């Protein structure tokens, strides 16, 4: 009989929790639920493909680079392919070649994010790091590397994320860039478009500087700023944010 079974079953049921305990448990459950919902609702949107710590800046779009560093491409091709040739090497006047005709970059825009920044050429600071314009409003172009339009290597542009007195610079929004976004760089009258292929946040201690500043390999744009944790004593961030973009015409 169901009722008899139940009564019998009820006598062997474990004691139910007392009323106050049940109240607290219910309240806790509600609290966790509400807290969880709030946490989920306020999570940062993961717009960029991988914004997390990478071990190193990975030039994944570039083929392996030639390691032979020196000189113009050799004549007398015995070295190039094993072909036998007795062709004499060319001789040219021992004078300096004229400087590159391509203009230096002077302006960068990212339409979707409303970025429009001036670019100036910069070199190396006394401590051996890249020199940057003092104001976060201006991008520095590493003048010893290739310029936009040149056939190989990385054009490197960098700006301060923030500065005492100035506040947060316009470059800060690059973390919101997505794969496929367009960056344009002007050099005088010529405007060149680049398509973003990655945005990475890399610990400075892991950053592959020779890849960031590569002068060989396919032409690429690197837009760099800082990110991560800030050391208030040293006034330095612990990461670089690197946007990689490929020329698209």
């Amino acid at each position, binding site marked *: 009989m169901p009722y008899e079974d139940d009564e019998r079953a009820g006598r062997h049921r474990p004691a139910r929790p007392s009323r106050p305990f049940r109240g607290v448990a219910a309240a806790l459950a509600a609290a966790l639920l509400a807290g969880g919902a709030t946490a989920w609702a306020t999570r940062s949107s993961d717009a960029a493909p991988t914004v997390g710590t990478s071990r190193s800046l990975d030039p994944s779009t570039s083929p392996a680079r030639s390691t032979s560093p020196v000189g113009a491409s050799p004549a007398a091709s015995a070295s190039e392919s094993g072909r036998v040739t007795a062709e004499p090497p060319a001789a040219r006047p021992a004078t300096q070649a004229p400087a590159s005709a391509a203009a230096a970059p002077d302006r960068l825009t990212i339409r979707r994010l409303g970025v429009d920044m001036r670019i100036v050429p910069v070199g190396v600071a006394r401590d051996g790091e890249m020199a940057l314009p003092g104001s976060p409003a201006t991008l520095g172009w590493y003048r010893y590397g290739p310029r936009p339009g040149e056939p190989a290597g990385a054009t490197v542009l960098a700006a301060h994320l923030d500065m005492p007195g100035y*506040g947060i610079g316009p470059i800060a929004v690059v973390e919101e860039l997505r794969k496929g976004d367009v960056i344009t760089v002007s050099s005088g009258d010529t405007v060149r478009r680049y398509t973003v292929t990655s945005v990475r946040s890399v610990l400075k201690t892991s950053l592959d500087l020779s890849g960031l500043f590569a002068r060989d390999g396919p032409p690429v744009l690197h837009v760099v700023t800082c990110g991560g944790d800030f050391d208030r004593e040293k006034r330095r961030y612990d990461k670089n944010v690197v946007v990689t973009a490929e020329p698209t015409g």
Partner: protein
Amino acid sequence: MKSLRIAAVTALALAPAALVAGPAHAADATVSILHAVPGATVDVYANGKALLTNFKPGTLTDPLMLPEGTYDLKVTAAGAGAGGAAVIEAKGVKVPGGANVTVVAHLSEAGKPELTPFVNDTSKVPAGKARLTVRHTAAAPAVDVRANGTVALKGLTNPNEAKAVVDAGTIKADVVLAGTSTVVIGPADLTLKEGTNTIVYAWGSAADKNLELAVQTISGMHSAPGGVPAGAGGQVAEAQQGAEAARYAAIAGAGALAGGLVLVRRRRAAAVR
């Protein structure tokens, strides 16, 4: 053209069978040849085989890969043939594997044509710098080399070189008699391209008043800067911390509110019963 005595060159030589050689080896040397004897268009032979023909003064060959070893070199008047009279001859010149070398045909301080091999420094240069190498290969006494009017390399004699790592950029270079301000070559604009070894040769003859500069540039020795220090204000980090704190407060607040509401409702329900 005067016939000239053989100049023995012991430091370097070009390897024998290299001209019709097979595949490259790691032990190949990179060799360029500079013609710095005024007035003579020449042919160059290595071990009896023509290496260069109609080689004009003031010209520099593209780099040539040659296996290490020893070579006999001969310079003749253009078209004189392998058996022609030697303008310069150097036997048993040794070429070390892996070296980067410029062999220079030039006048000695006394005006006699000779061959001098120079090993080119291809070690890395710090970011923002260039290596400047100057070689005295002219029939002239000791000189100082000036950059923008200031002596950069002093007391250079034939057939020696001096070098220094300097800031990259363009300088006005000139050459003066050592210890004086008597300019014998220049001034001329000289671009010291970052990451290169820019090699400048003083050549020609002071007596014939045709002293000039030749330039060879070897690139690829640049270094990347040590970092990109792009942020010193910390305001972005602060803003992120503030946002995180506010978020945690919201989570805690929502939790507390929901929990409190449940307790209140249960007490009311209990009171009603």
